[in-house]
């Protein structure tokens, strides 16, 4: 049982929560994630990346977007509530060293997991360029935190409501075309974004690391539900990842697998939202 100790709404569908988890806070390293359940009898187990940790307070921060039943339910939980199942930190940590110039491309909610990674990369002496992409200005999160880390910050919105009106791949391409191209790119965000970042950097042969957020059950390598095809070999994201060489990931297959349950999930979310709404009306 882990207590929610703070909660903040970052944008329309995006929430930040601080969770009391001293052991995870102590052990976690950039790139790792947790798995949680909002109900340990019937709930789904969902993975979320650890956005931050405070060892003294014994807490970690998660940032999530409401996309399905479990995230809806989570967004309705309040400070003081307990999460019945909360396990981590899982996955292999990001390999942090001084590569030279690293470009961190974060799309949408991907800014959350990118934050600790960019911070760690900066700390060991990298020149860090951060590209943040969002659909529109209102969906932009953690801009200030990222500004504090970045040697160079580029913000793009799809609709041009803030920063550059562009997809993240545009500035990424320009960076690769510079005289001295970056040593490494890290892309975290929606699968389609990571796919196109990888396609963008491929001709320039810039190593591109992506962080995959697949469906998971156990997170210990037991079920294979999280498997992806890397260079035609099957790998398990929870124990072999979550980070992989973007040029080797079969994104189309991964996206199809992520979408496996979209319809069922949507149906469940709809029922849940209707039920909750009705219940609330009843109270009023």
């Amino acid at each position, binding site marked *: 049982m882990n207590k929610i100790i703070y909660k903040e709404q970052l944008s329309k569908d995006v929430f930040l929560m601080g969770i009391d988890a001293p052991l995870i806070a102590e052990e976690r390293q950039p790139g790792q994630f947790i798995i949680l*359940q909002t109900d340990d*009898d*019937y*709930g789904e187990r969902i993975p979320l990346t650890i956005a931050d940790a405070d060892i003294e307070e014994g807490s970690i921060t998660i940032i999530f977007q409401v996309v399905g039943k479990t995230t809806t339910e989570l967004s309705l939980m309040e400070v003081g509530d307990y999460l019945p199942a909360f396990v981590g930190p*899982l996955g292999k940590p990001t390999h942090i060293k001084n590569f030279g110039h690293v470009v961190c491309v974060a799309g949408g909610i991907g800014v959350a997991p990118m934050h600790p990674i960019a911070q760690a990369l900066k700390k060991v002496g990298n020149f860090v360029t951060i590209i943040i992409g969002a659909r529109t200005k209102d969906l932009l999160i953690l801009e200030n935190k990222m500004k504090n880390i970045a040697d160079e910050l580029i913000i793009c919105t799809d609709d041009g409501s803030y920063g550059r009106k562009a997809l993240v791949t545009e500035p990424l391409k320009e960076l690769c075309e510079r005289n001295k191209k970056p040593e490494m790119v890290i892309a975290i965000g929606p699968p389609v974004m990571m796919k196109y970042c990888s396609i963008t950097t491929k001709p320039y042969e810039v190593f591109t690391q992506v962080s995959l957020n697949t469906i998971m059950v*156990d997170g210990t*390598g*037991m079920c294979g539900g999280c498997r992806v095809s890397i260079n035609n070999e*099957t790998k398990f994201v929870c124990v072999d990842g979550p980070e992989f060489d973007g040029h080797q990931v079969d994104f189309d297959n991964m996206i199809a697998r992520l979408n*496996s349950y979209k319809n069922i999930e949507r149906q469940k979310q709809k029922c849940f939202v209707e039920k909750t709404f009705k219940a609330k009306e009843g109270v009023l």
Partner: protein
Amino acid sequence: MSYHSLEELSAQAKELIVEYVDKCDSLKPKERTQIPAQEMPTQDPLIRRTNLEEVAIGFSEDQARIEAMRCLQCVKKNCVQDCPVNIDIPAFVNKIAHGDFEGAAQIIKQTTLLPAICGRVCPQETQCQLHCAVGKALKDVEKSVAIGRLERFIADWERKNGKKVLPKIKPPTGKKIAVVGSGPAGLVVAADCKREGHHVTIFEAFHRLGGVLRYGIPEFRLPNDIIDHEIETLSQMGVEIKTNFVVGRTRKLIDLIEKDKYDAVFVGTGAGLPMFMGIEGENLVGVFSANEYLTRANLMRAFEKEKADTPIISSKKVAVLGGGNVAMDSARMAKRLGADNVYVIYRRTENEMPARKEEAVHAKEEGIEFHFLENAKRIIGDEHGCVTGMECVRFELGEPDESGRRRPVEIKSSEFIVDVDTVIVAIGNGSNPLISQTTPQIQVNKWGNVLVDKTQKTSLDKVFAGGDIVLGAATVILAMGEGRRAAASINSMLALERETEKAVKNSYAL
């Protein structure tokens, strides 16, 4: 075997018991072998394939006593030698024959902790019942005394009659033991070490205890209530339980010893990394490992569709690849989750199938179709990446291989397409990678199984291991046997430590 109802079997037993009850002690061996072997009552196949309730209902009291009277009480006790935990089988069977069920329970409990579970899932036909003199006399191992069913009968009787007695626990020793993983191996270590008076903490990655007993073996073979009951015993004994705790990640194994001051650690993390066939289309939507499929169905309760959040595709035509118990469980679960057609596809013939015969018979009764001498070659998907079919190829049996089984040889150009929307791969598991990945000091073999000596000790000081993580995918009872051995080693190691500590203290006192 054909289906007979519980009423039918109980009625027959009621008549028989009248005939035998007074002769219990005076029956000649010949007469005993002529007592009809008792059949296990089950739920009607047509009904049970739509529910999750236990398939085998269990012997009635009369049935149990009659079955027990078949035992010759022979001096050789082959059955005991073939039992990995050496239960005194003739002794408890004799108590049953006399109707002393409590006495029988006491004998079983001396050597095993989880009889309700073992009685249900042990492969008795290759263990205790394999060399049973009755089976030998009747030249049919299936006619051996049904030791497993009797064991289950006693465990169920004890539970239903509220006769549970907590094992005696010695005074606290101040020593701490960490048990990693709560499968059968871990549960046995926890109990055996607790009895010695040590403080025991179980660390489990999942939110529920039991390991494969919980998430793998389905409810219809091993009800969750039974696992809960056994685990409750551990809590009542004072074993500390930490769920949602992945050793290696939440805390390094070494830190359990160095920072948290555990005096010994037992690693029982079980099998992991499900194997796939390495064929085209294996990562399509609708292809599951048996582990994932069964975990969603059991632990995450996909069967209760209205309540469970865990999504599972509603399949109509399911192919299960493999011929072991795990394949049988997956196929039977798919049927219960609503599939119209379920095919088990196995490369060899029925004779080579590693699944327990009883499970295969039950599967057939429930309408599972078996396709022998066939194997998958490629899984076919549509434009959304979802399974729409599978290409198979036929085999014939060739020369025997090292294991003595005739090797299947592919028949050229015999490919054909089966229409399926779901494929469940049940061809085995590798080892759980987490401990070896995060504890580089621990020695493992090339398959990732932890290496241990005769006492179950690993290459690391104070660290022991057992169960599937050592053996590769094995059985519940073998895991328990290893757990028992590990616990004995831990207990004697700690006893020695305490003596040394005492001696040092005394020498200071002088």
